């Protein structure tokens, strides 16, 4: 047997003991996933899904797995507010639920919202299917370590026919290890040579019942410059006729590596509308794996990724049409500046029998610097009949004619660039129905534009 070379990252993550749950099947699942992680290590760029995202630098880093002081980290609660988002809020600091920062009182009828840590104590059995999964692919290293290590996250259920109008907000907050609240000295356990570098993992389980509706906003932020590795795995199930409006705002600190994976299953006539803004992080990866398993299911994804500095942001969509007359549309824009890099892979599969499906994907990218790079790869596989499919991808620079037109009217070059870049990005976020949130996203992306 070939044993993978020992990697500091893998060794460090395996040093900490597994969290003990006292639940037999969960402990077994954690052990199995941990063993798989230990055996296979990290994927290298020969693994197709990781071709453009090298983990070499990350693999040399050491992180303490889990934050023993998560409950006492100082967090400025005012930083959590998002315009247009005024529903219940769950806040996780370094992967752990913080009741003091959350507001889950007076939930609307039909909405169940619990931290995973509590849900496991109350009744673990409904979570068994999701949490006892064993990840098989070579590229699944982070899902494995997440399955082995995650102790918290959200368990969200919307009852059949319930309409949850006010957006539910999930906040994943990365706090520096050296920013423990006054009077709460950091426990000795993290007095470690690499004490400031934490790894944490969170796990979400979300289900919308038949004909239920939900607006959900997932926010990734942090304070200070914590050097962290964070993973988040989310399972999202939409029962027949359910509708989900889902917005992700990712603006973590520039020293954080964030690896997310979302598995979305869409039953008949259900609909998911996803808007994503990826701004922060050092190495950022998002895998969205969507399965349209019921007839007439619909998925719309919209997203903007804007790596700058030396950031690397990788988005991987895998959309499977598995039922009749399913429809998916994906419209993504990338803007890379400085020495940053972006990756976009949009793979659509129309499975045998998914006749009448309609799959479209577009990814347009702007390079604002000669040293920036974006690799884009649309893929389409069709095994069914009467399918409508379209995909396209471009990488280019700002249009010189447009720049000159704006400048000829008196708009300085930098402002003209910002105006055109913002317009380029807004084009895919404009159909976000929450106007206040949409304007906020716009401001965030303007703030990230190069200043010179």
């Amino acid at each position, binding site marked *: 047997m070939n044993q993978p070379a020992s990697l500091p990252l893998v060794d460090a993550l395996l040093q900490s003991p597994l969290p003990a749950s006292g639940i037999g099947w969960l402990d077994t699942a954690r052990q199995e996933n941990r063993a798989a992680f230990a055996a296979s290590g990290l994927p290298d760029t020969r693994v197709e899904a990781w071709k453009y995202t090298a983990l070499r630098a990350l693999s040399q880093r050491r992180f303490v797995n889990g934050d023993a002081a998560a409950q006492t980290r100082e967090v400025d609660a005012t930083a959590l507010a998002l315009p247009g988002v005024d529903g219940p809020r769950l806040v996780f600091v370094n992967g752990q639920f913080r009741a003091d920062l959350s507001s889950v009182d007076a939930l609307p009828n039909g909405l169940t919202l619990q931290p995973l840590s509590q849900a496991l104590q109350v009744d673990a059995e409904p979570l068994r299917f999701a949490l006892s999964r064993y990840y098989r692919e070579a590229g699944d290293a982070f899902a494995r370590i997440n399955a082995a290590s995650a102790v918290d996250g959200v368990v969200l259920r919307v009852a059949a026919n319930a309409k949850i109008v006010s957006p539910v907000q999930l906040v994943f907050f990365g706090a520096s290890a050296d920013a423990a609240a006054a009077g709460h000295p950091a426990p000795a356990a993290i007095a470690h040579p690499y004490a400031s570098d934490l790894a944490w993992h969170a796990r979400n389980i979300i289900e919308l019942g038949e004909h239920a509706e939900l607006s959900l906003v997932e926010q990734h932020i942090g304070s200070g410059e914590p050097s962290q590795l964070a993973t988040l795995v989310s399972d999202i199930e939409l029962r027949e006729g359910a509708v989900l409006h889902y917005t992700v705002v990712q603006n973590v600190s520039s020293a954080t590596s964030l690896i997310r994976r979302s598995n979305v299953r869409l039953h008949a006539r259900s609909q998911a509308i996803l808007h994503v803004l990826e701004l922060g992080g050092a190495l950022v990866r998002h895998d969205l794996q969507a399965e349209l398993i019921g007839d007439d299911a619909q998925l719309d994804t919209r997203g903007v990724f804007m790596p700058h500095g030396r950031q690397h942001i990788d988005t991987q969509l895998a959309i499977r049409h598995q039922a009749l007359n399913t429809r998916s549309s994906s419209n993504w824009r990338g803007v890379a500046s400085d020495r940053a890099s972006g990756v976009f892979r949009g793979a659509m599969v129309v499975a045998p029998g998914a006749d009448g499906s309609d799959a479209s994907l577009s990814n347009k990218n702007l390079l604002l610097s000669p040293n920036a790079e974006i690799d884009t790869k649309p893929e389409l596989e069709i095994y069914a009949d009467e399918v409508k499919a379209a995909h396209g991808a471009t990488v280019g620079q700002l249009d010189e004619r*447009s720049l000159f037109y704006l400048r000829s009217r008196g708009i300085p070059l930098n402002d003209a660039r910002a105006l055109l870049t913002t317009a380029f990005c807004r084009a895919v976020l404009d159909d976000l129905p929450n106007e206040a949130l949409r304007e906020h996203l716009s401001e965030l992306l303007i703030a990230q534009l190069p200043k010179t």
Partner: protein
Amino acid sequence: MSMLNIENLHARVEGKEILKGLNLTVNAGEVHAIMGPNGAGKSTLGNVLSGREGYEVTAGSVTYNGIDLLALAPEARAAAGVFLAFQYPVEISGVNNTYFLRAAFNAQRKVRGDKELDSMQFLKLVREKLKVMQISDELLHRAVNEGFSGGEKKRNEIFQMAVLEPQLAILDETDSGLDIDALKQVAQGVNTLRSPERAFLMITHYQRLLDYVVPDFVHVLADGRIVESGDKSLALKLEAEGYAGIAESHPAGAAA
């Protein structure tokens, strides 16, 4: 002092010499028409004056209100009062027309040390201009030139000119592609803006715009130089005789 003084201007595009020693003087309050056959260098002149990239000035000078215009970036020329109405206005999707125009208006005011207008004040100004220009306010709500008809694009150029109130307006074939009603409307817009402080340089291939905007001077541009100047009767002569006669009397390569 004249507003614009062009002396012995030579300019190249993609290595090819287009302007070959052009001389022109424009004073405040004057309307000059530049006419000439295709390829004579008419649009190159407009682009060089407004600072478009790719136009290399190899000799000569352009002095505008006593300063070296060619040393200024395009946005600085605009702030100094130079405006180019484009032959082919650019469609900019995702940028609202009013937002764009206010950004331009305020950027110019900032350079000049004037107070910037907020969106309410600006909207008031824009509505007044629309009324004068007889333009529908529907154009305000759309993206810059996006989906505009040819006539709407040209009207939008004149409307921008009315809002920005330049000292020197260069109209590059603003009449081309317009039907007679649109042409009259554009001409009326220009006439409204004529004033003793403002000068116009109208670049045109055809004489018909000059029926509606009567120029003080008409110049014939051929092979990169002004080969003949006169009053509005020169335009009528050109209309009757065509550019062929001019070309014959001023053969290519003849010394300026």
